[in-house]
């Protein structure tokens, strides 16, 4: 077997039983790695309608055939579990040396079940597994915990750990390592529920590649192309440069999606911050693009803060905060506490609107108040005061607050909406509605279509369906190989390029058409998981605000989403995928795509909705 070890490690934290489990070759070829492999493992290891924070809930770290190869941007891994925020499938990716060291342990994935009785660090090496007490690390930031553990275990170890938010089971806590985060969906809380402060990995087990010399040549050429104009934006300004573009196009969510432009956007832009702050650049391990831009934080001169579009938008315009230093500090706080910046910013923005409308008793919480933003971030991580209510995310908080607040709680399936205003980006609105993880710009790349000549982004139309499916399929492959999506502009034909990379690493003679089928399989398998966990068709919809309130500003002035039209698009999307109009998957499709039918999967065979 090339590119893989052909096995995963299953660890039970309750019993400390550790088992090696073989991964059949056909499973690897069908699901590749990363998100695909993680989904297959969740379907095999999970329980129906389970509690994501119960001890038996599986937590998965999945690597891929490309990790450890010389292919640029391939040092990535997927963390997967049922999300305690959404109660649906959650796949978060991250990249760092943890991916390379993790695969060198000799496994293609780790499946972690059970719960330790005390704070624990799970140590995985080729020689076996150890359960190391992590009491000293409990209460520390993930970075500090990693430092302490590496001092104790040795510098060869790479550590993924949780911060205080994960320990306190905040539903949008991150899993962090080397300053990067598997951020969305609260996987840090899943670790916290297992009293698993950290996973430390080290090893020397490499895999063989099918065509090692050609792989080196191909990788060299890919690295060369990655320096070209298609990635210049990421290298020179980072994703934060989207802020001014989005503001100009009226797609920048502002003050909890009450507006689509922010009057202080120029002040927060990287173009302006470059004139007032010192900046360094960095990259994930094994990346030649280097999109990370770290700015000095005047409050903490030793700590440089990573600024990307999503943390900038969520902690800036979404909360009405215009001071760049305040946004840097909020970002640093999220890193230290282990909070997903998108969900944290969106939840606080939602609370600010509730406070301004008098729906909650929080006079201090007003749009634009940076101090209130910082204070609320801390209270969420420790779940004190208002933080307890907000630590469950906007869906849960709005259900408790009531009084119509559900209409403007900015989430789909419980996952807070990222920095793309759906009324002004209506292909993305469809993507947000249907994607298995919830409102998500990484699993649905439909915004690419809106920012193109192909569609009228302000008016939904059936022309949006094929590209919405295509970009979602494409994302599922990027996330399973795993490669950074910022490479996408570099390829002439992405599926052809991915097929070639799999030929060189895993030795598969796979055609681009077969990869389209693989993508379809992975997207469908994620939906199967959701159905298994109680999904219902009404989840595939946006909150009322987007369906009833017109955009009050920007180039999309007056735009709104027509609910019946969006329902129709969702229905046609489902049909195009071979599902029923409502989105149920016919059993014969599961067989054809070789998706495992999980234990106690609701049988829909014979129901008219399942067979259309």
């Amino acid at each position, binding site marked *: 077997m090339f590119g893989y070890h052909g096995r995963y490690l299953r660890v039970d934290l309750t019993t400390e039983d550790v088992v090696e489990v073989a991964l059949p070759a056909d499973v690897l070829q069908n699901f590749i790695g990363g998100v695909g492999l993680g989904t297959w493992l969740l379907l095999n290891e999970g329980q129906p309608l389970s509690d994501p924070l119960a001890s038996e809930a599986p937590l998965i770290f999945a690597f891929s055939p490309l990790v450890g190869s010389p292919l640029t941007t391939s040092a990535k891994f997927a963390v997967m579990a049922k999300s305690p925020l959404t109660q649906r499938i959650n796949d978060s990716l991250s990249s760092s040396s943890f991916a390379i060291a993790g695969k060198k342990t000799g496994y293609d994935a780790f499946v972690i079940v059970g719960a330790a009785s005390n704070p624990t660090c799970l140590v995985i090496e080729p020689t076996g597994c150890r359960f190391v007490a992590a009491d000293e690390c409990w209460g520390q930031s993930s970075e500090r915990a990693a430092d302490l553990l590496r001092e104790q275990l040795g510098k060869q170890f790479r550590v993924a750990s949780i911060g205080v938010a994960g320990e306190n089971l905040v539903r949008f806590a991150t899993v962090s390592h080397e300053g990067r985060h598997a951020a969305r969906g609260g996987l840090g809380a899943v670790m916290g529920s297992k009293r698993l402060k950290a996973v430390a990995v080290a090893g020397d087990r490499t895999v063989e590649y099918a065509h090692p010399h050609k792989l080196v040549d191909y990788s060299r050429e890919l690295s060369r192309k990655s320096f070209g104009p298609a990635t210049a934006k990421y290298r*020179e300004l980072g994703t934060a440069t989207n802020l001014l573009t989005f503001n100009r196009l009226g797609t920048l969510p502002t003050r909890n999606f009450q507006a689509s432009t922010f009057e202080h956007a120029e002040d927060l832009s990287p173009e302006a911050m470059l004139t007032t702050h010192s900046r360094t650049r960095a990259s994930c391990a094994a990346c030649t693009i280097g999109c990370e831009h770290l700015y000095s934080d005047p409050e903490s001169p030793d700590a440089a803060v990573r600024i990307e579009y999503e943390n900038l938008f969520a902690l800036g315009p979404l909360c009405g905060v215009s001071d760049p230093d305040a946004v840097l500090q909020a970002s640093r706080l999220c890193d230290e506490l282990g909070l997903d910046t998108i969900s944290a910013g969106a939840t606080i923005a939602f609370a600010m609107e509730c406070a301004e409308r008098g729906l909650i008793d929080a006079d201090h919480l007003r749009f634009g108040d940076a101090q209130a933003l910082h204070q609320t971030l801390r209270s969420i991580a420790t779940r004190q005061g208002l933080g307890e209510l907000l630590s469950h995310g906007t869906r849960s908080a709005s259900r408790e607050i009531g009084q119509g607040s559900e209409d403007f709680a900015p989430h789909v399936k419980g996952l807070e909406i990222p920095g793309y205003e759906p009324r002004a980006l209506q292909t993305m609105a469809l993507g947000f509605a249907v994607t298995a993880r919830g409102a998500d710009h990484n699993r649905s790349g439909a915004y690419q279509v809106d920012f193109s000549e192909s569609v009228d982004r302000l008016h939904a139309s059936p022309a949006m369906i094929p590209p919405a499916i295509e970009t979602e399929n494409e994302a599922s492959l990027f996330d399973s190989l795993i490669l950074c999506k*910022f490479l996408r*502009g570099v390829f002439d034909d992405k599926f052809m390029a991915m097929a070639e990379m799999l030929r060189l690493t895993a030795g598969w003679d796979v055609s681009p058409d077969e990869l389209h089928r693989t993508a379809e399989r992975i997207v469908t398998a994620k939906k199967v998981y959701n159905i298994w966990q109680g999904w219902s068709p009404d989840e595939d919809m946006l909150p009322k605000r987007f369906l009833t309130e017109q955009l009050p500003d920007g180039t999309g002035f007056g735009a709104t989403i027509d609910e019946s039209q969006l329902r129709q698009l969702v229905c046609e999307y489902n049909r195009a995928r071979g599902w029923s109009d409502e989105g149920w998957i016919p059993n014969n499709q599961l067989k054809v795509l070789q998706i495992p039918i999980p234990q106690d999967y609701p049988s829909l065979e014979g129901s008219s909705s399942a067979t259309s």
Partner: protein
Amino acid sequence: MTVRVEFFGIPRQRAGLAMMQIEAGSLGAAVTQIATQFPQLAEECIHADTLHDGYLANVNGLTFTRDPSYPLNDGDTLLILSADVGG
């Protein structure tokens, strides 16, 4: 036709300014003028009267286009952007 041109991202970095005014009746004519005025921007973003693949034009914040024959009217605003807006 007097057209206001606004630059974003890499085009702004290469042009060294955020906006300007030009006289042009089509996207191609506008792009040609911009190329003459900003050789550094031209080198990376423009070929003859067309924007490279990684770049895109938008008229009045509404219509995305790369078509050189796309007509521009008096008072239009032309945005020159990086095409890949992922974040």
